[in-house]
């Protein structure tokens, strides 16, 4: 396996970065998220895809059970503000803050992007983000996490 796609642990062994990709709500456009899934897989990551029409609760539950490094949420419906507000509200209610970073993907106005980052979204990927850039950002976020255990 390629060293560049892996993360080192304390004992020097390497492991694949795990990413959950999700579609939330009535948005049925999944071409983009599938391209991202393949891009990350081809970069050596393990990508768990939830399928369409999930609720914020379901997605957070899946991300916790799968213990992912990064949670990517793709939204092309224009409902990103209420959905991310709900996501962070649910995360705030958890007894323990999950370790994953959250990435938003899709088409969103610049001013919303700023708001999303204030809420806690680590990265916003738009239709202009290149595959290499997506891989680099996800890898950086996965590496950035504190090694909790």
């Amino acid at each position, binding site marked *: 396996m390629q060293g560049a796609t892996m993360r080192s642990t304390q004992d020097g062994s390497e492991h694949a970065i795990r990413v959950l990709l999700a579609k939330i709500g009535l948005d049925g456009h999944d071409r983009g998220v599938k391209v991202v899934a393949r891009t990350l897989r081809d970069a050596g990551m393990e*990508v768990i895809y939830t*399928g369409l029409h999930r609720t914020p609760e379901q997605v957070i539950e899946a991300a916790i059970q799968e213990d992912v490094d990064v949670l990517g949420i793709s939204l092309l419906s224009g409902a990103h503000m209420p959905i991310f507000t709900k996501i962070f509200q649910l995360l705030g209610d958890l007894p323990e803050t999950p370790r994953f970073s959250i990435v938003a993907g899709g088409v969103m106005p610049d001013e919303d992007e700023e708001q999303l980052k204030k809420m806690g979204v680590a990265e916003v990927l738009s239709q202009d983000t290149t595959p290499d850039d997506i891989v680099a950002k996800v890898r950086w976020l996965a590496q950035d996490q504190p090694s909790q*255990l």
Partner: protein
Amino acid sequence: MTGTVSLTDRVVRGDVGAIARLITQIERRSPGVDEVLSELHHSAGRAHVIGVTGSPGSGKSTLVSALTEQYRRAGRTVGIIAVDPSSVFTGGAILGDRIRMAALAGDPGVFIRSIATRGALGGLSRAALDAITTLDAAGKDIIILETVGVGQAEVDVISAAQTVAVVSVPGMGDDVQAIKAGLLEIADVHVVNKSDREGAHKTVSELREMLRLAPRVPGQWTVPIKQTVSATGQGVPELVDRFDEHLAWLADTGERERRAWRNTATRIRWLAEELVLDRLKPGRPDFDRTVDEVTARRDDPLSAARRLMEQL
């Protein structure tokens, strides 16, 4: 940072975050994970472990989802380990089993984890078995292990289950042939899924014919062939009944203990192999010296291996 003892306690209490973390540590062979697992081993052994295997597209994930719903209706908790293949070229994987299991979301009595075949350091077999121990110790009544039944590692894993269901679908022609090659021997229950399709009866009779050819001994479990349509749930309650009957049969005949003994033996051998190979690898001075000696033909490989084993 969570201490070792408290992680064990949290897993035993069924804490979802702790179970998820531990399975990650198992996959990554993180330091300290062996101690947690050895503690958990004492709390495990109560769950009914069911293996579900079959060719891609046979509807395994949908069937696992339908089975889980049926178990939940009876108030039994379920842990699911869904294994999907990694890319041979990049080591990456797309794990899509959850797509078919959306009906189970939001139920605290269900825990689902996707595992990639190559993501697990120390091999899929070890990671999957340790993940089973984790879910078992966490108090899940039923643990379902879903794999594509190809490759020796996957057959090894699936044989750790108490009840193995092999899933086929009508109209795939050579499908039954594929089962004949490797999985027939380990099937405790045959499932013909998507039975609303044309050719279901033909698939059932082909399987029945094949089972008739298998050698039989008195008192042996009669492998049933069950038809299901997992998308609608048809046949699923009856399938759960067969699984329960199989577990009862295992217990009544003493086969449960015999299988547990055999699987434990296999596990110990795997682990011993791993421990030995970890001590015998390039970079360890005594090993490197021995390799030099054998390469220079002052010693032979077998004698060298024996001497190294004795020195362990």
